[in-house]
């Protein structure tokens, strides 16, 4: 190989800053002429005498720019150009034809063979310089593009890995604590790694099931990250026995603070009480929830009643759920709008009609959930959806009723107090407070903080709820329990309760909890006092023990079962229950 560099061997060893030029020409005079010009431009020059030789040298040593004569023995310039371009692969190596030919066909062949430019003989130094500059510009652009692509691929792979880790953490925080998922059917097809749809389930202290399906604006990571605080609030408050309206209000408050103004979360909230065959349902901005009965019939739709959560400047929602009667054959279907908007390859949307048509089929072998899933799959094919798709089916069968959730560890672990030691806790609510505050979860929070009372939370929650219910609904609001016995009575009773409570101007309820420790554990004295007229407690208590007495009697029977004693005082507006507990 002729190095071609003029001067001493030292120059030959050091590569020129401008790179290596490969000159392929069968005539020595042409080669020397071009070499001299190229050396002046700062190139290290390598030459070959024909196409085959040139290709071989390129394959072995590479080059930054190639000059090819067209007419050569053994292998001509066209073939050499093709092979050199092939060898160069993804790299861009400028190939410039040197030609004495001037006819258009020959010049066209040069370009077709892969040549980037052509230079006519005799050479002009200025033109050569310009052509080299142009070729180098293209080459440098190409190199920069490749460099950026490599960098992009690297960053993308890094991002993917980060997302996978984040997804695991998210899943653990949001999804893992969910309960009853062995019975609740779910179809989850997110548009990306992270779904902007969130499904949360948790049990109340009395065993009812709370379910929240939320849909954040957009999708992907930015949509999903809002689910973390929502999950925390939902679980903590469900666990303490807060009502749906209170939980939704707190989530709304939290999201309004956290999310930017253009983001919000549409949601539907279900409190399922399968034992009593009813559910309380709230829908803010989601598609209709469907109650599907036997034979696929859609018995009822619960439409959106208020706007979504987390919208700034709109804190006027009441968050009051509606009451729905449910049979054991019924299934509640919840869905996000991604399902309705799912498109087929032609661009049509799945839509409500197709959804309801797939549900309302009298086919005992399949469930409504299955039919929707199959219809959707057939409609859309396997393409990734535009928006997160979620479908949830909650059966209303009695097996859905569960035990209360395991109690969380109390924050404070005090020493067991000595015998005779006691503490007292009081809360008194006037009418304004009664309209806004449910004191039962507040009282429960106090009790749960102290061991070993936390182990009795289910029983204590039942006792406190029952006594407060009586005090508020019978004592203050003067509701007639007989309403419940009517058809659709629970719904009517609940609506009347809400109405009277919202109009309440007078009334007070006072709760005293006095805990006395003894050798075995202790006794919790639970004292309720309301400003109402009272009731004929003697007759109700008599009837309760005798088995009759209707709703009021049932409640008292539960209390008698859990408490050591139960005494009504005054006109019946004062009651003391004693709960004995062992530590």
């Amino acid at each position, binding site marked *: 190989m002729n190095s071609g560099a003029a001067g001493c061997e030292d120059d030959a060893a050091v590569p020129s800053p401008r790179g290596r030029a490969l000159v392929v020409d069968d005539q020595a005079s042409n080669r020397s002429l071009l070499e001299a010009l190229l050396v002046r431009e700062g190139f290290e020059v390598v030459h070959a005498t024909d196409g085959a030789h040139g290709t071989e040298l390129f394959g072995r040593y590479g080059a930054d720019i190639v000059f090819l004569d067209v007419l050569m023995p053994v292998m001509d310039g066209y073939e050499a150009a093709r092979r050199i371009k092939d060898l160069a692969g993804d790299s861009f190596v400028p190939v410039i034809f040197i030609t004495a030919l001037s006819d258009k066909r020959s010049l066209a062949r040069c370009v077709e063979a892969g040549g980037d430019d052509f230079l006519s003989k005799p050479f002009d130094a200025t033109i050569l310089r310009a052509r080299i500059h142009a070729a180098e510009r293209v080459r440098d652009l190409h190199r920069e593009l490749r460099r950026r692509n490599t960098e992009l691929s690297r960053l993308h792979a890094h991002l993917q890995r980060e997302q996978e880790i984040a997804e695991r953490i998210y899943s653990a925080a949001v999804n893992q604590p969910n309960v009853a998922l062995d019975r609740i059917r779910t179809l989850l097809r997110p548009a990306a790694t992270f779904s902007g749809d969130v499904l949360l389930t948790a049990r109340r202290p009395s065993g009812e099931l709370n379910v929240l399906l939320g*849909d*954040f*604006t*957009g999708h992907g990571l930015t949509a999903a990250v809002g689910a973390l605080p929502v999950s925390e609030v939902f679980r903590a408050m469900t666990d303490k026995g807060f009502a749906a309206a209170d939980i939704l209000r707190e989530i709304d408050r939290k999201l309004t603070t956290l999310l930017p*103004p*253009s*983001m*919000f979360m*549409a949601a539907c909230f279900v409190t399922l009480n399968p034992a009593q065959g009813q559910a309380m349902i709230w829908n*803010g*901005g*989601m*598609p209709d929830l469907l109650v599907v009965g036997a034979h696929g019939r859609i018995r009822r739709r619960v*439409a*959106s*009643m*208020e*706007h*979504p959560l987390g*919208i*700034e*400047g*709109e804190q006027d929602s009441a968050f009051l759920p509606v009451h729905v009667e449910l049979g054991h054959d019924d299934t509640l279907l919840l869905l996000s*709008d991604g399902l309705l*908007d799912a498109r087929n390859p032609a661009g049509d*949307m799945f839509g409500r009609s197709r959804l309801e048509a797939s549900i309302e089929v009298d086919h005992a072998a399949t469930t409504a959930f299955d039919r929707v899933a199959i219809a959707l799959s057939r409609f859309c094919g396997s393409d990734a959806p*535009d*928006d997160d798709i979620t479908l949830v089916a909650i059966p209303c069968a009695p097996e859905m009723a569960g035990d209360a959730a395991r109690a969380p560890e109390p924050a404070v672990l005090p020493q067991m107090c000595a015998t005779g030691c006691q503490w007292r806790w009081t809360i008194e609510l006037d009418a304004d407070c009664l309209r806004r505050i449910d004191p039962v979860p507040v009282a429960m929070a106090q009790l749960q903080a102290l061991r070993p009372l936390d182990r009795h939370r289910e029983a204590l929650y039942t006792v406190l709820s029952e006594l407060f219910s009586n005090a508020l609904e019978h004592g203050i609001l003067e509701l007639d329990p007989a309403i419940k016995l009517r058809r659709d009575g629970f719904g009517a009773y609940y609506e009347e309760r809400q109405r009277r409570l919202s109009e309440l101007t007078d009334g007070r309820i006072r709760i005293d909890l006095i805990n006395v420790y003894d050798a075995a554990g202790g006794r919790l004295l639970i004292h309720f006092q309301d400003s109402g007229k009272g009731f004929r407690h003697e007759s109700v208590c008599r009837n309760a023990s005798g088995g009759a007495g209707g709703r009021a009697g049932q409640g008292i029977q539960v209390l008698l079962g859990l408490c050591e004693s139960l005494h009504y005082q005054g006109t019946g507006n004062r009651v003391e229950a004693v709960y004995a507990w062992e530590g």
Partner: protein
Amino acid sequence: MQISTRESANGKELTISIAGRFDHTLQQAFRNAYRFHNGRPVLYRVDLERTEYMDSSALGMLLLLRDHARAGGAEVQIRTPAGRILEILQMAHFERMFNIISSPRQS
């Protein structure tokens, strides 16, 4: 042009029309339509007559316009034909936050 704007002669009204899909890809363009507007409109009209599809990001964009309008003491009106777009707005109960005017769909 997916988003086009039209100003009334007296500069008091700005109409923003959206054709086709109103989704997150229009975020920047929609904001630019009103943010860099020189006048001080009293009424912003969002024309969804030729909008084929709207997602929750679009609802979010409308909320941003509302905030911008409020800051300048202006109102926001949404014009849409009856149909899927109106259903989406009603599901989110945006009629409580915007003046929504619907017209029967032209055949």
